[in-house]
């Protein structure tokens, strides 16, 4: 026993020496490896034609920033392992040490303890509200004043990112303006239904032009294939509200007087509930499927237990890819037309998705804002969203942007745009409009569907930025809003899965009663006021 103890003590001492030593070596090792990666990239055979002339920052010295990416599903948790990040480092000298979110409270701890990294990349509204504080982060306008860089932002964009104190602390990416949407160039073509071709043919390949058509098709499929779920949804049931022409989201919208209101009072919402309830009673949607995460959803879909799936506009492409890999022989097609004349496509606020915040702990805030300016420049956007010209994309004779053959070959092999190439990942500066996205004239199965979809619904979508500001960020109204949101999902499911008319009525009135008790009137009064403030 004593001898064992002695050996352990020696082991402990040795380890403690190595553990302490390696602490300090961290950041320098990171930046030197990033620099190595950047240098090795120049040896590629397909030479980059784009010269680093116009918008790159003056000081291209290597610098490593720390960043907290508040998306636990993010494709990467380290920098420099893909083509695009290496190229970014080559052109700007900037590399990142990434901490990817694992848990909700991580960031809160860092904020409270004042231990924030240089950058924070987040899309959560509460987090953004916390960060929009001059004690916590630098405001962009202050840094722009200091350095004089061009941040490439329109007035609308700046207004949409304005914090309570009048400054703006980030510019959300993937934002959309009304002009872009009207021109049918909005990349996000919203939710879609993909249907399996073999079952579709078995029920006689019926027309799917209206909601009624859809319902009939689902009923027919259920009769022919009782063990198959007719419509497998992964959330996204709001699709049907959009088809019915309801403008807004499940949380905020407009009531019959045209005023801003909470989701329960939206004009036409009861028609939406009734439709889903009818679907549920006919067995067209599945109760358990409402609890599925993506893994379980995939399992049901891949094993052939679903006819139609309701998810996002790449659903057909994704399903086909999985089926091909698994060898099951199923194929899917995307439903690219709308199901009613009133349909509103991807009713969104256009505000954007994630903002990149620069914390007060940033080692070099001037360099940081210069980097953001580069990201938002045409060169930066093209690199991050499209890839490296010559390697991944290029212009054809007509001047259209197309993917290169080597890229397409990679895709055909099963490589993925983000995971394997790093394209569309580091989109800090992406502005979600046509200029930032590739105009593919060549077929990429996902893109063809997306293009068809957005062209069909383009004329129906409306940007409603004010709705974003109708959601409270502090105070009693926030508590009311959170409580309402907290009960939303479970009450909603009780309503739509009610098996009799009495149950349905009871569930619905119970929900409204709870909402009243929670203070929905107070919230809506605040909302109307907030919207009025936004337009001032």
């Amino acid at each position, binding site marked *: 026993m004593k001898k064992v103890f002695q050996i352990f003590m020696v082991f402990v001492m040795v380890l403690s020496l190595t553990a302490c030593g390696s602490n300090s070596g961290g950041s320098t090792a990171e930046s030197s490896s990033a620099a190595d990666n950047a240098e090795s990239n120049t040896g590629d055979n397909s030479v980059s034609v784009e010269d680093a002339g116009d918008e790159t920052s003056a000081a291209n010295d290597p610098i490593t920033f720390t960043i907290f990416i508040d998306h636990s599903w993010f494709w990467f948790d380290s920098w420099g392992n893909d083509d695009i990040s290496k190229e970014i480092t080559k052109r700007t000298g900037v590399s990142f040490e990434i901490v990817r979110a694992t848990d909700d409270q991580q960031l809160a701890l860092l904020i409270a303890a004042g231990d924030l990294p240089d950058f924070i990349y987040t899309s*959560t509204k509460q987090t953004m509200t916390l960060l929009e504080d001059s004690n916590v982060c630098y405001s962009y306008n202050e840094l722009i004043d200091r350095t004089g860089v061009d941040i490439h932002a329109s007035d609308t964009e700046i207004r949409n990112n304005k914090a309570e104190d009048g400054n703006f602390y980030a510019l959300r990416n993937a934002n959309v303006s009304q002009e872009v949407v009207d021109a049918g160039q909005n990349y996000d073509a919203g939710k879609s239904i993909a249907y399996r071709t073999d079952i579709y043919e078995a029920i006689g390949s019926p027309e799917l032009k209206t909601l009624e058509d859809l319902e009939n098709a689902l009923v027919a499929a259920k009769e022919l294939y009782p063990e198959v779920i007719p419509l497998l949804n992964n959330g996204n049931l709001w699709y049907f509200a959009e088809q019915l022409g309801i403008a807004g989201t499940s949380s905020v919208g407009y009531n019959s007087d045209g005023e801003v209101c909470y989701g329960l009072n939206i004009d036409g919402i009861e028609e939406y509930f009734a439709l889903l309830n009818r679907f549920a009673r006919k067995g067209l949607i599945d109760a358990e499927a409402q609890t599925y995460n993506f893994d379980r959803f995939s399992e049901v879909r891949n094993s052939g237990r679903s006819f139609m799936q309701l998810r996002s506009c790449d659903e057909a492409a994704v399903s086909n890819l999985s089926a091909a890999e698994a060898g*099951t022989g199923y194929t899917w097609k995307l439903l690219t037309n709308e199901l009613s004349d009133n349909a509103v496509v991807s009713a969104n606020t256009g505000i954007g*998705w994630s903002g990149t915040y620069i914390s007060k702990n940033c080692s070099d805030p001037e360099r940081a804002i210069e980097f953001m300016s580069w990201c938002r420049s045409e060169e930066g956007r093209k690199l991050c969203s499209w890839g490296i010209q010559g390697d991944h994309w290029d212009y054809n004779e007509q001047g259209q942007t197309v993917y290169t053959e080597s890229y397409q070959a990679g895709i055909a092999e099963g490589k993925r745009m*983000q995971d394997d190439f790093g394209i569309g990942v580091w989109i800090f500066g992406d502005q979600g409009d046509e200029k930032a996205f590739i105009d593919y004239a060549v077929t990429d199965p996902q893109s063809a569907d997306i293009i068809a979809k957005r062209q069909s619904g383009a004329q129906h979508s409306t940007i409603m930025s004010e709705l974003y500001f109708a959601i409270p960020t502090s105070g009693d109204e926030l508590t009311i809003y959170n409580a309402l949101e907290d009960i939303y999902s479970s009450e909603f499911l009780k309503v739509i899965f009610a098996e009799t008319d009495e149950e349905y009525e009871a569930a619905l009135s119970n929900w409204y009663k709870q909402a009243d008790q929670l203070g929905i009137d107070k919230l809506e009064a605040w909302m109307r006021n907030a919207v009025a403030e936004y337009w001032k």
Partner: protein
Amino acid sequence: MISAGKKKRKRTTEDYIIDSVVWITMILVVILTLYPFYYCVVQAFNNGIDSTLGGVYFFPRVPTLENFTILLSDGSWGNAIVISVSRTIIGTLLGVLVTSILAYALSFEHVLFRGVYYKIYIFTMYFSGGMIPFYVLLKNLQLINSFWVYVIPGMLNVYYMLIMINFFQTIPKSLFESARLDGANDYTIFLKIALPLSKASLATIALFFAVGQWNSWIDSVYYITKDHLRPMSYLMMQIINKSAISSSKMDAQSAAYAASAQQSTTTSLQMAAMVLAVVPILVVYPFLQKYFVKGVMIGAVKE
């Protein structure tokens, strides 16, 4: 354990009944507990996309090592093993040392202020100021982003201490009496009498500490940002967590991106991560098991 003499006596009806009941129950227990784990291992060795088709229950349908190669080709697993092993060994040693000494000290009924001490210790099990003050404390102690954050705060586990106290109290007091009459001080008694007699409880506490250290990953999430200090359990949870998030809690755009990112993390990959992270400690435990089999008292008690 029942002593060897039992074997010589004849088996009665009662023996048959009890033995059959025990055997049947135990077989059921083995099936119910072993099969799910076995299922996970089968998934780990099965092709990822094929696993999503379902129906793989007993043998891999499309056997492959690709899940493991994907994980191990990422260099961080090698480093993570070193971290996991180090924190387990050091953390267990420190924990057992501190806990057994304190338990020994508090196990005597006539220690001055004993009641007060107990209350002070137990109070800390239920009251806490929350994560923020603790984080700031660790920061001020330079423990953030240091290996020692894994082993120092966890050294004193009041819960385990209470269990060990109970075990120490089962040692007959007469042994301590005779040692004291021989002139030994508390320190000697602890080393030469208390510890050797508590092998079973020491092994138990050591096992709890070891498994706790091996599986612990949330401290890595909150207190560490440097990649080279990540333990294996953290890497495993990163992979498993990626797909665990329900998209209904995310905003629409995040949900769309997330679904695309989650594509590549199949159930098989998650299972492979789990196998890599869990199996090592399962291999070590059987060596500690022998301490539970023996139970013979050293030195007879003269009544």
